[in-house]
């Protein structure tokens, strides 16, 4: 797995060399910051509910998901598509690394940037702690859920970027698949058959994040996110292997 580590470090370096990392992080923080300000403003109005602001930040509203399904494809779209387009995939795959190391390295590189984008939001927690008591449970749960959902979403992006040589196509495909994953969350509310209702409730990311941001860590969404990530990384690996036969 040394190869994967080398690739992850190189990807992180490339993110910060190209302005992409700065653009993504700046846009993400500006929007998330404004969003957080709005949450605080609403909650401080007289008669507002006593919801914790952190639980609204993490998955409590639709904005959290909009940010994710836009940010993730932008982070991942370049990783495979550019290698395929510029031909550098040839130098990469003829180095003594396995295809699996390549996929995992790219995934890890994307995860670094994703975490880097979220890290500054720790300041929000600090800001809130200046004026009121902060319950550590929802904060830690919220970050854990954000990372878990991130693993799942980033693996989808890694898959699509190894499918197409074109970055835009890879990003749109990732966006569509992520939207589909979110729509799966709704199915359990529509369906009446108790068995299928149960099955689809496992895929309810929305409910999962609400749980995490209340400080409740349920093993079912943890398993769903991790196995989902493994599934899409396996697909990415297959897509890369299939490239060799064309």
């Amino acid at each position, binding site marked *: 797995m040394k190869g994967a580590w080398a690739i992850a470090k190189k990807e992180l370096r490339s993110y910060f060399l190209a302005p992409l990392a700065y653009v993504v992080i700046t846009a993400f923080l500006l929007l998330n910051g404004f969003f957080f300000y709005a949450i605080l403003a609403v909650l401080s109005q007289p008669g507002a509910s006593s919801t914790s602001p952190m639980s609204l930040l993490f998955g409590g509203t639709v904005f959290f998901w909009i940010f994710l399904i836009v940010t993730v494809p932008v982070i991942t779209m370049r990783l495979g598509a550019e290698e395929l387009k510029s031909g550098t995939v040839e130098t*990469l795959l003829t180095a003594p690394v396995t295809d699996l190391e390549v996929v995992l390295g790219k995934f890890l590189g994307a995860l670094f940037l994703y975490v880097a984008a979220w890290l500054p939001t720790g300041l929000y927690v600090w800001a809130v702690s200046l004026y009121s008591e902060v319950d550590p449970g929802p904060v830690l749960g919220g970050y854990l859920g954000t990372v878990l959902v991130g693993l799942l979403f980033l693996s989808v992006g890694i898959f699509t970027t190894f499918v197409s040589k074109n970055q835009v196509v890879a990003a749109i495909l990732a966006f569509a698949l992520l939207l589909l994953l979110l729509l799966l969350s709704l199915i359990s509310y529509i369906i009446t058959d108790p068995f299928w209702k149960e099955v689809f409730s496992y895929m309810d990311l929305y409910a999962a994040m609400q749980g995490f941001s209340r400080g409740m860590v349920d093993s079912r969404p943890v398993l769903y996110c991790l196995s989902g990530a493994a599934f899409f990384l396996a697909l990415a690996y297959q897509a890369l292997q299939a490239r060799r036969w064309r």
Partner: protein
Amino acid sequence: MAGSVEDPMIEVRDLTRRFGQTEAVSHLHFRIEKGDIVGFLGPNGAGKTTTLRMITGFLPPTEGDVVVGGLSSQEDGKAVRRQIGYLPENNPLYEDLRVREYLAFRAELKGVPRRLRARRIGEVLEACDALEVRDRIIGACSRGFRQRVGIADALLADPPVLILDEPTVGLDPAQIAQTRTLIKGLSADHTVLLSTHILPEVEAICSRALILHRGRLLFDGSVEGLRKGLSGGHLTCTVRAPRAEAEACLAEIPGVIRVRTVAESGGETRLELETDPASDVREAIVRACSLRGLTLLELAARQISLEEAFLSITTDEAAGEVEP
């Protein structure tokens, strides 16, 4: 299975690759001994790059196998790739990295120990005469420097085998000469397989040539042998006679396959003859001319260049395929 001294460095066994219906490479067999510099020749689309990609493990073969240093590329892909330094066609590089950053990444990827990396990068850049672009962004390097960075990368982990796909393409004459000298210098402790469609390149650096055409091996032997095998059968002669008469006279000599007039001036005709390499027709030419009362002014064996040899081999093959 460990490679002994007698084992070839690279052995290609019955290598075939199909893309859909097209057979890009068809049942190739060849061996490359340790320390050889082999030129891999062929027109564009002959299957050179596909073959090199199969040797380096980038493409899996449809049939057959490649054995490098005693290890099968199918079964021990990673170990085989560790033994090969590869410069792909068009030399793809990460445009946004600096040269030293790129080489540091490649060194880590190739498993060069951390404490040796900086020294090794300095060594290969020096060997390729590219130390001055060390801190430059690759996207801002000239083609010549990019090529040198690509070769430096191939040398980075000091692999026993170097595979260079068109290493001098797009370089200016001075850079070409420099690159050739560099490659020749590497032959002391490396086995080199380089593809090209420039014949003088093979004449200048290689000891052996493989000619590939439409995915099949047409020639496998020494560069000397390639030229010798084809220099028989080509003559030049000048006759004091009008063109028609000279051609008629020479064409009917048994053993003469083709007669072509090169120049005609002042009653002299200069002709090139293609003759059956198995028979010596020089005496017959002298006799035929005197019999017709024509004066033979010049008769010489023509040394053909590898260019012509190559064209003759590949076009003969193409012509042969059309006829049933």
